[in-house]
């Protein structure tokens, strides 16, 4: 399990888990689970387009993540948040179907992009993932106060002089960065589980923001590490364990919290 061919998997997955744990904290605070689901899924056509054009896969993913941020922001000016998000999802995936149809990628490739392929990680992927993840974390921590303020009390945030539209845009951009970091590793669908599961469970355990952020990272690391280990032992897809552990953590948090006051955040 800790052989040399697994080293890359452990390194990259650890970086992804830390990034997703931090960004996920804000996904949960802002109740942006849908956007966190749609940006990665909408970036996956980028990988298909990249293989069609013969360019680097990561480039396509970054490009489509950026397109997603712009698309959702534009649609939000006409439509409520979740409808705008759903519309962008439909458009991006329609393009994805077309690209897939043109490249005639093997379904195994599609499967890996959606559900992740942790065991075949090339060393060349480590550096870009580290850089993108570091930027995502840096931006999140820089925006920590305005993001938190805007999420908990929009009126207070506005009074403090931060524009709502600007904050939402910055948040979507951070989500997109996290997407580009994690998508090649854990797949479009599992990025989402990793952002929502651990962070929403952490919220049941404490009321203090910084502690919740730390717990979110710890749970995210626990999820990824045990998912890789279990996947290695059972040969089952790593995505299954990530999704299932997210559900288990959330259920445990809810049960522990039962009877107490509902979480403020």
């Amino acid at each position, binding site marked *: 399990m800790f052989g040399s061919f697994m080293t890359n998997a452990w390194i990259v997955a650890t970086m992804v888990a830390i990034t997703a744990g931090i960004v996920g904290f804000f996904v949960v605070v802002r109740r942006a689970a849908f956007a966190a689901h749609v940006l990665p899924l909408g970036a996956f056509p980028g990988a298909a387009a990249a293989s069609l054009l013969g360019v680097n896969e990561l480039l396509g993913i970054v490009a489509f993540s950026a397109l997603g941020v712009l698309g959702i922001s534009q649609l939000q000016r006409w439509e409520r948040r979740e409808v705008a*998000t759903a519309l962008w999802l439909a458009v991006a995936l329609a393009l994805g179907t077309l690209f897939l149809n043109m490249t005639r990628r093997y379904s195994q490739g599609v499967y890996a992009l959606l559900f992740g392929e942790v065991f075949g990680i090339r060393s060349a992927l480590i550096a870009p993932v580290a850089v993108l993840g570091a930027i995502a974390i840096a931006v999140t921590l820089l925006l920590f106060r305005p993001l938190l303020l805007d999420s908990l009390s929009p009126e207070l945030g506005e009074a403090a002089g931060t524009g709502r539209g600007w904050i939402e845009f910055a948040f979507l951009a951070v989500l997109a960065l996290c997407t580009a970091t994690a998508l090649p590793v854990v797949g479009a669908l599992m990025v989402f589980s990793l952002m929502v599961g651990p962070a929403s469970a952490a919220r049941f355990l404490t009321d203090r923001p910084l502690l919740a952020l730390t717990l979110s990272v710890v749970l995210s690391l626990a999820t990824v590490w045990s998912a890789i280990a279990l996947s290695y032992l059972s040969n089952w*897809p790593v995505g299954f364990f990530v999704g299932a552990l*997210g559900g288990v953590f959330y259920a445990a948090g809810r049960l522990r919290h039962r009877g107490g006051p509902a979480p403020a955040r």
Partner: protein
Amino acid sequence: MRVLGLIYAPGFLSNGPVHTALLVGGGAAVVCAVVGVFTVMRGQAFAGHALADVSSAGGSASFLLGLNPLVGFLGMAALAAGAMEWADVRDARERDLLTGVMLGAGLGLTALFLYFASVTGSATGAAITVLFGSMFTIPASIVPAALAVAGVALAVIAAIYRPLLVSAVSEDLAQAQGTRVRRIGLAHGWALALAVSLSAMTVGAILSTALLIGPAAAGLRLADRPGRSLALAVLIGLLATWGGILLAYDSYDWTPGHGWPVSFFIVVLVFIAYLLAALLARVRARGVSLRAVHPSGCGQD
């Protein structure tokens, strides 16, 4: 005649798979448009999408077991809709997270079942079929069952039409009128599950959101009265679906050898309809009154 042949390839209506696609796709489009209007009004677009994705776990399980796909999609969606209501989420904001966690778990199950299917070798390309749909490979034997599902969903909506409408506009008002809001919510959840699993089977689990949200959002944009919005949504959904099937059929002639995906055309047509509706609504709002209500004003949640 030649011009007609360009938009209407010969043999379109005498083709068996096309018949099935037109029937099942049309049924899915109508039900999705009707249920979708209420889903958009109630602000449950995410739940609608999540149900579709979770139902794909059932779809992949039925691939694995060799069952009728409708049974798999439907069973899983109904289970998920029930679980969402059972969890008794009073706080609307908590609902978002619960939906997200369930979606993650459901997708994990899909991954597992698809993995089993690929290991046993019983279905190659199951991932593509389950997630992106396979309009032209729907077995004809499914048509009666699919149309029956569509009928049941429409009947549920028709039965609770008024209270559903009132509670979508204002839950407090519905409660004051003596409506059991939770029961209405559950009924809408089941109708949503039926609609979504039907469209997940035709245009694929992750594209079914287009049929659910697109026509409904366009219809709501175009008309202020719910009845009219419903009619417009149904019209847009049907035209986009049938137009998409026609274009996909024609596309076999554009690029010899293989056609373009049906789902692509359907979504593109739906989105064009939405953009036109949004544009029209803006122009009209500017013409009618200077204090035109900015639509995004009601969506700051």
